[in-house]
């Protein structure tokens, strides 16, 4: 078993702002309040540190406002990081910075071919044995299959059908191997069927809470950190024995991201079966390198 503390990659919002529009949330006419954004990020950082997470930081870069959304850096599995290949050129400049940082952290960085798109933990989340993955809006279905081949896992590609929920982590959040939060309407009938068939306990979000980015939560043990404004979810989480924590992240929601988007779990998400079994080799063939 891996008893090391949770490790999370973040990026200070020094250069964060709404500089372009690549999702329905972004509107340059409604810029983020930079000072408030920094304050909100610091609060999140504080909460996660308080929960025992070791925070690693990637150096902010001028001209890369979305570098702050580290969930999109890569998919972590065992000691490997499948580096993102961003669909939008505006974000492709982030790739080398994430790659350098992940390598520096001791992860083996694996790159996909140039003609593929895959946006890391934003679109691929382990829940139990399976890797649930979103496609169409950002990642490509073909790339998801490629990723599954690379890390030898069973993948469930799910079509995202609502532009507001352009990444899987905006509408789906695994809590533990058999439980997850989701917003069903973000998926088509096939996706909904796959989710229901494979995840025992699903907590449905209302549309109002879903568009408040309630699903974009950071899970540390039994703690679930979300944006403010999702009391119904928090009540359900408490019923299920979780400890929901809210922190305002309104300035990041303007860019289409919230708590989860601002973090990348370097030691694997709580719900990943491979992490719990401690048998990383069975999944990735590579033993996790614990620096």
């Amino acid at each position, binding site marked *: 078993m891996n008893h090391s503390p949770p490790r999370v990659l973040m990026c200070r919002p020094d250069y964060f702002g709404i500089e372009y529009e690549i999702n329905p949330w972004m509107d340059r006419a409604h810029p983020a309040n930079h000072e408030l954004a920094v304050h909100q990020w610091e609060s999140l950082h504080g909460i996660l540190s308080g929960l025992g997470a070791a925070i690693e930081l990637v150096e902010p870069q001028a001209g890369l406002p979305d570098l702050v959304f580290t969930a999109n850096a890569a998919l972590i599995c065992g000691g490997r990081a499948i580096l993102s290949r961003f669909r939008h050129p505006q974000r492709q400049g982030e790739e080398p910075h994430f790659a350098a940082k992940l390598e520096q952290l001791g992860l083996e960085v694996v790159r996909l071919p140039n003609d593929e798109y895959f946006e890391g933990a934003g679109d691929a989340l382990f829940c139990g*044995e399976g890797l649930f993955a979103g*496609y*169409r809006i950002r990642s*490509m*279905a*073909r790339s*998801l*299959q490629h990723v*599954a*081949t690379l890390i*030898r*896992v*069973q*993948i*469930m*590609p*799910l*079509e995202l059908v609502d532009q507001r929920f352009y990444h899987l982590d905006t509408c789906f959040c695994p809590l533990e191997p058999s439980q997850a939060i989701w917003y069903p309407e973000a998926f088509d009938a*096939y996706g909904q*069927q*796959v989710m229901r*068939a*494979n995840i025992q306990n699903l907590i449905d979000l209302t549309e109002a809470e879903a568009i408040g980015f309630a699903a974009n939560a950071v899970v540390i043990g039994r703690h679930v950190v979300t944006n403010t404004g999702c009391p119904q979810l928090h009540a359900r989480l408490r019923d299920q024995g979780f400890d929901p924590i809210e922190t305002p992240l309104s300035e990041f929601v303007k860019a289409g991201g919230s708590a989860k988007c601002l973090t990348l779990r370097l030691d694997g998400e709580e719900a990943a079966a491979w992490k719990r079994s401690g048998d990383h080799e069975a999944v990735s063939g590579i033993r996790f390198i614990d620096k």
Partner: protein
Amino acid sequence: MKPPSAAPASKPFVEDVEVAGHIIDSLLLPKILDAIMAHKGTFEIRKITVGQRRLDPSYALVQVQADTGEQLERILNTISVHGAVPVVTSDCRILAADVAGAFPEGFYSTTNQRTEVRMHGHWIPVDLQEMDCGIVVDVDRQTAECVPMLDVRIGQQIMVGHAGVRVFPEERSQSEGGFEFMDSPVSTEKPKRVAARQVAEWLVRTKQLGGRTLIVGGPAIVHTGSGGYVCELIRRGYVHRLFAGNALATHDIEQSIYGTSLGVHLERGDIIPSGHEHHLRTINTVRRAGGIRPAVEQGLIKSGIMYECVKHNVDFLLAGSIRDDGPLPDVITDAVVAQRQMRTRIRDVTFCLMLSTMLHSVAVGNLLPAWVQVVCVDINPSAVIKLADRGSFQTVPVVTDIEPFLRALVEEINRLEAALKESVSAEQEIVAS
């Protein structure tokens, strides 16, 4: 029963796509197939491999079929999002012919199956499909057709290699109740009456649908005394073309003039004194008349297969061989010229009945595209084996003596015609009442 047809595909626009990975439990494959149908296309799963263990990927090769190019494009765009991508993504490669009567090295050698070549991203059907040819491509007009080696002209754009080409194996009709009982190696131990019934159904269906039946016949038809059955088929409109050699025509005309075939009296079975001369005298008579048609018109030939062909305007082609006597003036003695003419004259043929002639059967089998149904009747199993060995897989073999087969065939046609008449008059009665 599937009728003989020159239109091999149900929907003309097709593309093979493949999708790999975890496509079963994730419902990706059902979703792709549903998407094809939602766009009013159809599909055929050509190959599927399902992963045995949870982590094993699965694979599906799916042929997408559509009515129009635009519809196919729409379907492909839709399903590519889900990871289904075309198998072939490169155009065909062409080289200009540098030697007349020869292909460039590495030329693509054709089969008799329906073939398409890819030009500028679009699939172009290959015209004049024939086995053992090359493909000449006209890039400006976006056309392609099979060309025999001998007919290659310098500068023609000839396809080389195997990239950008796809072949559609002909679906055999056995499952539709046709010749399934004969879907086994050639054997003499098959019920011949059933075979005759099936061939009768094909002949009747071809006539009803306005198709064209070609008979390729050998002299055994006459020797065995079954020429009359072929005459019957011609008179009743079941034969549209006849390919044969010098022998069939000569023996048939000898019978008309002398009542013998190679001197043997066909009614009595005895040898006529000086009967062996009948053969040469027959050829001489026709040569003096200037050909078979003039001989018929001059009243020298009054019956027989060739007579019926002339009388019923059945197009006939006689191809010669090195051992021919005479030959008859109608016989084409240049094998290349004969082959070229046969090539032209099989183009509208939809059903082919080969009767007791090995070399002519193989020659015609080489020229016919795979979607033309062929039945080869021969007492010698090696005739039909040779045909199949040379790639005419669509051939249904019937190993039997030709006389009882043709007798049964005519009887079966009589039965079918009577049944048809009965159903027509029954319909009329219903309408009248």
